[in-house]
């Protein structure tokens, strides 16, 4: 089983690398040619990046902020208030996925070609059920093996789904499924008394946070999966403080939580070809790769400032992709990516918004 996972991962990375510039498989090197983008600093002295305002072309979703909603390139997925069903719609096409008795919808993921709806057991004792929709044909299917763990972190990129499962002896493992053949397999398993979370996936790779069982605060490490499907720590974060992570064309974006008592306040960084950038403050747990970029949310930094969605681009620039209409008392929900389209809920005293925009 593990061998198949490694093969799938290797294929993913190879395809990503080949599509860029046909260089050998590596998680690092397929970035822009040297000289065309800014170079960062050292690990100890990263280059601070000033953001530029470059708003995306935001459109109103037409649904209330807080509603489960994912917008894709052609399709949109809308959940009901009770998390009992998801309506997938495109022009004249529509597919309805219902949770079924004793289950609720816990995740809705979308890529350009696939949608995945996870149905969690309400009692959280039985494995989650995974419904799959081929967005080309509208046909539905499922991923039955390996059994998906209840809850946990999920990620989808192109036709590859990443999700938690339980392996031998109750080990908490990472599974992957190639949706085209509805076949999944388990791979790397977290060592005893450790776990993983914060999965992100893009054409550039799969990121995850691993952590131990230290108390009162776990020791956290952010990783990118190597070609064998084994998490390899990202070089850069201070020991035990990392949280978010996402692969980029030439490195990674990650966050650190410097003060355990301010869990939601993170500092984001990026690596690029072995150099380092300080991306400034952001909200813990909000990093998501989408299109060619990695996004994360930032709370208002002053009474007169809006909440912002930040975008780290392949050109190594930091952009302000969105600003909330409210200043001061405002915040953003987790940005959601659906096949190159980012959807964002914005909350604030001057009103909420729920908007989407194409990234590329």
């Amino acid at each position, binding site marked *: 089983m593990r061998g198949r996972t490694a093969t799938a991962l290797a294929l993913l990375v190879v395809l990503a690398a080949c599509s860029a510039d046909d260089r050998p498989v590596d998680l690092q090197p397929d970035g822009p040619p040297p000289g065309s983008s800014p170079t960062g600093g050292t690990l100890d002295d990263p280059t601070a990046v000033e953001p530029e305002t470059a708003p995306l072309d935001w459109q109103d979703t037409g649904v209330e902020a807080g509603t489960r909603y994912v917008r894709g390139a052609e399709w949109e997925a809308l959940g009901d208030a009770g998390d009992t069903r998801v309506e997938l719609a495109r022009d004249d096409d529509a597919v309805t996925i219902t949770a079924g008795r004793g289950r609720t919808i816990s995740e809705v993921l979308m890529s350009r070609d696939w949608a995945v709806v996870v149905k969690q057991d309400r009692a959280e004792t039985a494995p989650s059920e995974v419904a799959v929709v081929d967005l080309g044909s509208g046909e539905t299917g499922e991923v039955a093996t390996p059994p998906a763990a209840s809850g946990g972190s999920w990620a989808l990129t192109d036709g590859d789904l990443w999700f938690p499962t339980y392996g031998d002896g109750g080990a*908490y493992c990472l599974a992957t499924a190639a949706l085209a053949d509805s076949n999944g397999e388990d791979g790397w398993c*977290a060592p005893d008394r450790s776990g993983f979370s914060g999965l992100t996936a893009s054409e550039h790779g799969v990121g995850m946070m691993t952590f131990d069982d230290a108390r009162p605060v776990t020791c956290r490490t952010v990783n990118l999966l190597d070609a064998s499907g084994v998490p390899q720590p990202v070089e850069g974060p201070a020991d035990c403080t990392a949280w978010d992570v996402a692969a980029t064309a030439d490195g990674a974006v990650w966050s650190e939580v410097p003060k355990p008592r301010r869990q939601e306040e993170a500092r984001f960084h990026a690596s690029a070809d072995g150099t380092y950038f300080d991306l400034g403050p952001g909200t813990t747990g909000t990093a998501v790769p989408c299109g060619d970029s990695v996004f994360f949310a930032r709370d208002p930094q002053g009474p007169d400032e809006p909440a912002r969605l930040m975008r780290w681009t392949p050109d190594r620039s930091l952009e302000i992709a969105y600003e909330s209409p409210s200043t001061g008392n405002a915040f953003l929900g987790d940005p959601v990516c659906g096949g190159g389209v980012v959807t964002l809920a914005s909350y604030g*005293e001057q009103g909420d918004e729920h908007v989407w925009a194409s990234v590329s």
Partner: protein
Amino acid sequence: MPALPRPTLRRVAHRIADEDASRPLWRHPATIAAAALALTLGAVPLLPDGGQDDRGEIAPSAETTGAPGAVGRGGLTPAMRAEIDRVLAEGAALDRAQGRTATARASVRCATFEGQRYCLGFGWTNQSEEALAARLETRPTGGTTERTGDLDADGLLARAQGRTSTARTEAERAELTMAARSVGKVWMLRHEIQGVPLPDGFAERHPEVTAGVDARGGFGASYPKRSKILTSKVAQAQNTTYWCGPATMQAIGWGSQGKRKNQSYWARRLGTTSAGTAITDMVRVVNNKTDYDEDTHAGPYVVLDISDFTFKQWYRLMMRHVHDYRAPVVLHPNLHTQYYPYLDDDASGHFQVGRGFDQNPGGNPQLGWFEPWDQSRFDPSEPAIGRVQWRNAYRSFRANLDHFQHNVGV
């Protein structure tokens, strides 16, 4: 990673729940004694608080540090008794109610005490009975959520239907009596926080309140930049998935009594079951088992609907409680990922301990709180975080508003 696998946890949960069921809280000797005490105390005049300079007027919350300016308990007037009897009599409709809608409508019964409306299970509110019943009629959303121990609409309805008429009447009489005797505090909160004028003759009717005049002006200019109460050691993780109430109460009780009692002690007093804990029970136990309800602190705790509060008013309530009253707030948020972005999954309604503020002049106002929910205990996909937290207070306000009851214990 998890201390116990889920199936084991669930077995434990149901076993404890069954044990609770064998002796409902309303039959507990302590509860009966507390109810009897509440009924017999009557109109004990409580001395006004505040220093010499404050004598004869409402304690200026924005300026006090040593004088909390809290409100004591008032008496139970004949009009209040009659109102309580009226609402209790309407409870007979619950015995005949069939179906969710009828049960919800029969459950939400409101009393009006001196112009303030108190609704059973929801607390002091400006909402109509119909609006509150509609909240109960709506099935809890986010069924995927991990349940952390707040009694949701299903739980409230099940409890309403599960009680005998005698037990229900007894519990509701205690709840309404406690509420009626707290109406002076509710008026004062609405006056000071929301700017509602006090009614004519209020001071005379409420000697427990030093005769009040003006509402507090401004936002937080008179408060210190930052203030907090309670030592961090009282912030403990809940032992069981559905014990956010007992863990919250453990921290509050520990802060008051100076010694730790285990969460099972508090679960018994709160009447916690595997369905969770009701906020009305949280307030009842704070009033009965801590000194935070004394006039040297917050006065009698009340369940207060904040759905008509602005953020500034809500934050002011936090500052008043923490800095002037030196008393914790029973926070009542929805533990959803948009409000708590470090969580992997949405969780349910929840209890937390509000214990600090930081006006953070250069940034956004911050709230300090103790978080009993340690997701890592029950889920190998989530790492442990600190129990002591500070954060963007506006997030907590919105999480509070998102809860179907929209209330806090203050």
